[in-house]
């Protein structure tokens, strides 16, 4: 066993200002294996990989590689490449303006005797490399002419063609379709048989069980365990990732009443968005709280983005209150009575330099159009109402939003949508990164709103939270809606549904 080990990382610790990203984490990669690195968002997968490939410098810990003396400390991707560690990232790290051949060989181009780049030789070599992966494309074309999938394959070809002993694939499949994934797997197996160790980071459970030999699970920056694929059934894997044991699964009583008899508010029929979410059907009644669950990257956010029109649906139809919707942009769905709280509030929702009042009034103003300014007195009234109602802790309504705590910022953004009195409110991870007290308040608020007749779609990574608030849950897996649970909503059932498969 010992002799098989290609890379061993022990006691890796890495802190960023205010955050411990890695807490004595470890990872062992053996020769000729495909090793899945699993964990939810913030588990530290990317960080540990970046510590290995020299993007980050680790604070402490040891890294050893077979055939390399001593404790390895790479300071750049170049260093890592020199000792045979190649990485392919989710975003294609190639130059779109160069040809395929150049992207494969830049930095090590074949030269003519005079020292100039030998284009003919380079193109010939490139053709050979791509043929090896059974991808026949014109290597003299610039990369931007090809799809993201092909670009990803070129990136992998580049990594593979170098003399690499350890290949790290950081979510390489998220932009590939099934056929392309199959192609990639074939290449991965080919490499494994040659003795290359592969670290495979992915959110797709199916893929892990299809191609991997071993799994390392991480949670909150720490090592949870290393398992062989055979000894870790799906449900256990999900439990390990989410940090739940079946033993302490005290059934949480679902206090909300499923209002199964209310009138239907919204029906989605076969909607989809290419590359993010496969066609799905969805229905929500008035006053109902529906949860959407699944692992990160399973298509939770993508589904609601599609419903809301942030990603334009490319098929099917959407009907609200019996009227078919033609949504070209979010403003259309706002006008029809939808509200959407995105998961990344820093990037998508929060306007830190504007005041609390301005942030609250924003969506309402947008719906009214920019030439129908809401009178200042009315604005103050609305803002004060929500500050009181949601107990937003702010010195005044004119305080800049960025001065508020995360939880209170979140409440302001929720207030923004409540101000528009939506029929349907979509909350994507509204409780992420805020304290327990505020979390409970937000959950209570959701139930109260539903009681008043508002329909809510609720997404959260914390299953208990959804169990407490939702009357029905949609289960997402690998970009597809795979089922709905409307009775026996228990943590165990939900986790089983998330994990899928036979066990």
């Amino acid at each position: 066993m010992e002799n098989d080990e290609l890379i061993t990382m022990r006691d890796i610790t890495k802190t960023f200002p205010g955050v411990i990203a890695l807490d004595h984490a470890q990872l062992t990669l053996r020769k000729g294996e495909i090793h899945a690195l699993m964990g939810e968002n913030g588990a530290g997968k990317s960080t540990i990989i970046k510590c290995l490939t020299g993007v980050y410098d680790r604070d402490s810990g040891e890294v050893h590689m077979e055939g390399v003396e001593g404790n390895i400390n790479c300071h750049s991707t170049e260093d890592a490449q020199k000792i045979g560690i190649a990485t392919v990232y989710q975003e294609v790290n190639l130059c779109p303006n160069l040809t395929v051949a150049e992207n494969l060989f830049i930095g090590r181009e074949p030269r003519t005797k005079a020292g100039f780049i030998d284009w003919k030789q380079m193109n010939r070599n490139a053709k050979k490399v791509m043929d090896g992966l059974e991808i026949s494309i014109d290597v003299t074309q610039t990369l931007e002419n090809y799809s993201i999938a092909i670009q990803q394959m070129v990136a992998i070809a580049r990594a593979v063609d170098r003399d690499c002993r350890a290949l790290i694939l950081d979510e390489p499949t998220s932009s590939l379709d099934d056929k392309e994934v199959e192609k990639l797997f074939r290449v991965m197996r080919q490499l494994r048989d040659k003795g290359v160790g592969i670290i495979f980071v992915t959110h797709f459970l199916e893929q892990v069980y299809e191609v991997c030999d071993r799994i390392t699970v991480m949670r909150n920056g720490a090592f949870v365990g290393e398992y062989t694929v055979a000894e870790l059934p799906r449900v256990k894997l999900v439990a390990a990732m989410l940090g739940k044991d079946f033993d302490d699964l005290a059934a949480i009583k679902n206090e909300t009443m499923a209002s199964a008899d209310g009138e239907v508010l919204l029906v989605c029929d076969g909607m989809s968005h290419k590359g993010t979410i496969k066609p799905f059907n969805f229905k929500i009644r008035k006053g109902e709280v529906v949860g959407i669950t699944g692992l990160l990257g399973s298509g939770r956010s993508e589904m609601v983005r599609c419903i809301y029109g942030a990603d334009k649906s490319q098929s099917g139809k959407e009907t609200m209150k019996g009227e078919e919707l033609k949504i070209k942009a979010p403003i259309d769905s706002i006008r029809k009575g939808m509200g959407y709280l995105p998961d990344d509030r820093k990037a998508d929702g929060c306007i830190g330099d504007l005041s609390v009042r301005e942030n609250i009034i924003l969506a309402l103003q947008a719906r009214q159009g920019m030439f129908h300014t809401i009178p200042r007195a009315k604005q103050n009234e609305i803002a004060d109402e929500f500050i009181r109602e949601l107990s937003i802790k702010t010195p005044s309504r004119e305080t800049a939003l960025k001065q508020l705590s995360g939880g209170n910022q979140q409440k302001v953004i929720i207030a923004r949508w409540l101000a528009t009195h939506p029929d349907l409110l979509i909350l994507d991870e509204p409780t992420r990164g805020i304290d327990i007290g505020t979390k409970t308040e937000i959950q209570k608020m959701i139930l109260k709103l539903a009681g008043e007749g508002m329909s809510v779609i609720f997404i959260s990574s914390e299953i208990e939270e959804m169990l407490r608030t939702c009357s029905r849950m949609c289960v997402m897996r690998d970009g597809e809606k795979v089922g709905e649970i409307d009775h026996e909503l228990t943590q165990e059932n939900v986790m089983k549904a998330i994990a899928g498969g036979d066990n």
Partner: protein
Amino acid sequence: MKTKKKINSNNLLIMITIIMFIVMYAIGCFVYAGKGFAHVQTFLNLFITNAGLICVACGMTCVMLTGGIDISVGSLIAMDCMILAHGMGVQGWPCIPTIILILVIGVIFGLVQGFLIGYLNIQPFITTMAGMFFARGMTAVICTDQLSITQEQNALFYSWANAKIYLPAFLGYTNNKGKVMTPYVRPTVIIALLVVVVIFIVLKYTKFGRSIYAVGGNETSATMMGLNVKRTKLFAYILSSFLCSIGGICYCLNTMSGSVQQAKGFEMDAIASSVIGGTRLTGGVVNVIGSRFGVMINGTINTLVTTNGKLLSSWANIATAALLCFFIILQSVFAYFKNRNN
């Protein structure tokens, strides 16, 4: 192995530039037939007047390829001319060492700018703007008068400036006094064309050249692929300032003078020429040959306006503005269609 190259949008842009140049020149020949527009010499004069600009535009092209910009070139030319004029004219320095001094100054100037931009990550616009003010100020510090270089002061430099390299006589014409005017070019034209060829080879066939492309295409990717982005940027700016110094010498050979106001707005001409020649302001796409045609188009507009004689010379600026808009819009349109196809 011969591969058929599809005409992609970048090549198409350059084709449009070249066609536009030919059409514009043909119109000139037709409208101003009586004023000698069709003579080979008029065409060659385009090169003679713009030799400096061609050199500078080549350097600008390299810098813009990285996604940057160099607005110090106009002032640097003024400083070069002033040093040449003051050094050789007033101080009586010999010709060759002064020229070497100019080239060394160019390299140092680029080294400082490139270091600030590449290694300290300061905005190219700001950095080269500082360079612009510095060089212009330095020009005035050396001398505020307009200085000329005369034959008595430096015979060698003077002889270069007035040297004519004749082309075959059959290209010439007989003037109204019955004398055969053989078309000629100046040595500066040879220098400029040499610069174009060398830069073309550097960009296409050397590792440095391809690194410039990669940096312009995607800086993060270039780093990830193990290229030295900082050094590439540093050398791009050194190259720009060095070529600018060569351009400055060509410029001085044309004007034989130095003054504070010289070559004002020259950087904008160089940028305009690059853009018209198919360079993308965001970096990554460029063609040196295209840039040369950009210069030629600019020159043709100027020649057209001056040949007319009645038009205000500012009309040339307006025409350049219109052309720039045209090409920028064209670039966006192509980018739009490309995105839609993907």
